[in-house]
């Protein structure tokens, strides 16, 4: 025991290891583009990449084609393409799998444990689950033509854990203000298991909103799940609101029933300080249960704590729209934001300035970057989807991916700066 105490004291005073660094991995000082994936047929038709998703093993990247600008594209057919980056003889212009879809696809998400299942949300309001392992017809299940389906474009799909172990349901959010939870009945359909409707008059906010034109439903632009609390989800709206919602909310939504098979509930519990313009992306921190980021067309990124109204940090990403934001899976203080100017800016909250520590310019000039995702297994890879129809995979430098020894503590400190 005495030895231990002696050693502890010596350790605390010792300078023996000052500045001592060990490199186990090859240090990578540069950020480089490892793959530039394209589907020529989609590019010929000027389709945009609306969403990208990595599968659970980190070897396959899927992208959805559609459009992000205005207009009625409901009759334009589209594609979902996948590339296996680990395959020999990968041809970046020839996806391993191409799924033909009748309308534009706005969001795709790979299943958390089954590497070949992809959920997709369509412009038509349908939600589909595809199985890329099926040779004949890749459609595993989809929402039928029923009063349960979204009547407006689906903006996001996510997989959420269900009641039983290993069971996952599909969550879809639509610009008509509905958030719907679907169980997957294989070989047939997606059955509505629970539904939530957001309406202006049921939002918990103190600010006076201008009288809405048209209906009272709230257009959803983005949705994020909390990896810490399975009951919480965040919604970003077309009007700039950021809402904290609860899956277990009981109050019924004030929608007129229209033959839906479940009663829609009003999920919003708290309204954060809004953005000026649609909130296109939200992401919860994988390192702190109270922190999340929100970005929108006002060009700003807000770091919020779930515990307070005002953002903890508000930084200007660019002079244009911000379409996507993702926390780094390995560095607690780092996040990447995709801009309408065609670049992805990487910010370090531990740094001295509010300027990006790195900027990745897409080769497509200034066509917007609409989506980005970190590879869940090979965390130094970042995929980005552009308006010119390309998906670029970037290999980040070691400095941007290796966690510093005090980062978790610094993030904790940032999160605790919550004012009453």
């Amino acid at each position, binding site marked *: *025991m005495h*030895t*231990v*105490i002696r*050693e*502890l*004291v010596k*350790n*605390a005073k*010792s300078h023996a*290891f000052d500045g001592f660094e*060990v490199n186990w991995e090859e240090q990578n000082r540069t950020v480089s583009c490892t793959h530039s994936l394209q589907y020529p047929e989609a590019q010929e038709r000027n389709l945009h990449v609306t969403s990208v998703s990595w599968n659970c093993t980190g070897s396959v990247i899927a992208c959805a084609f559609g459009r992000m600008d205005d207009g009625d594209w409901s009759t334009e057919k589209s594609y979902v393409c996948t590339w296996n980056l680990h395959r020999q003889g990968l041809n970046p212009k020839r996806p391993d799998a191409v799924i033909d879809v009748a309308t534009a696809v706005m969001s795709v998400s790979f299943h958390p444990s089954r590497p070949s299942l992809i959920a997709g949300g369509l412009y038509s309001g349908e939600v589909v689950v595809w199985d890329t392992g099926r040779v004949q017809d890749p459609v595993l299940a989809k929402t039928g033509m029923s009063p349960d389906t979204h009547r407006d474009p689906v903006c996001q799909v996510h997989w959420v854990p269900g009641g039983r172990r290993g069971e996952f349901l599909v969550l879809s959010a639509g610009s008509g203000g509905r958030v719907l939870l679907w169980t997957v009945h294989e070989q047939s359909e997606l059955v509505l298991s629970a539904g939530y409707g957001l309406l202006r008059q049921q939002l918990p906010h103190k600010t006076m909103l201008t009288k809405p034109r048209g209906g009272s439903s709230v257009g959803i632009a983005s949705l994020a799940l909390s990896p810490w609390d399975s009951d919480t989800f965040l919604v970003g709206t077309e009007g700039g609101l950021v809402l904290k919602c609860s899956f277990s909310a009981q109050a019924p939504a004030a929608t007129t029933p229209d033959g839906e098979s479940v009663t829609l509930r009003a999920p919003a519990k708290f309204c954060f300080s809004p953005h000026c313009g649609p909130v296109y992306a939200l992401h919860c921190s994988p390192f702190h249960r109270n922190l999340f980021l929100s970005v929108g067309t006002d060009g700003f990124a807000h770091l919020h704590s779930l515990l307070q109204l005002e953002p903890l940090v508000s930084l200007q990403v660019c002079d244009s729209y911000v379409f996507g934001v993702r926390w780094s899976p390995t560095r607690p203080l780092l996040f990447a934001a995709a801009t309408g100017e065609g670049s992805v800016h990487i910010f370090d909250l531990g740094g001295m300035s509010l300027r990006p520590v790195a900027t990745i310019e897409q080769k497509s000039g200034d066509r917007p970057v609409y989506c980005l995702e970190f590879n869940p297994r090979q965390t130094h890879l970042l995929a980005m989807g552009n308006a010119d129809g390309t998906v670029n995979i970037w290999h980040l430098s070691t400095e941007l991916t290796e966690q510093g*020894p005090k980062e978790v503590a610094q993030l904790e400190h940032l999160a605790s700066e919550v004012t009453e």
Partner: protein
Amino acid sequence: MQSDLIAEVEETLKRIQSQKGVQGIIIINAEGIPIKSTLDNSSTVQYAGLLHQLVMKTRSTVRDLDPQNDLTFLRVRSKKNEIMIAPDKDYFLIVIQNPSD
């Protein structure tokens, strides 16, 4: 007698805990079962299981190199902290310290 021993153990743990940068203390028995800890349950179980194996492997390495030798102290220094393990016939004392805290 027994209560004297327990009191002595408690006293020593307090002294260790008060040293600069100590993040946790775990005492495991010769089989690797934790008998006292200042960390939460799941961390304790994880540390105990992994470090017990490490100590046994390290000890057999030392003795294989020289059968007349034996392990006296094991220190694992990592980017974020240092783990010190003091072995004994009946138990192992594990202390996790971040010296720069």
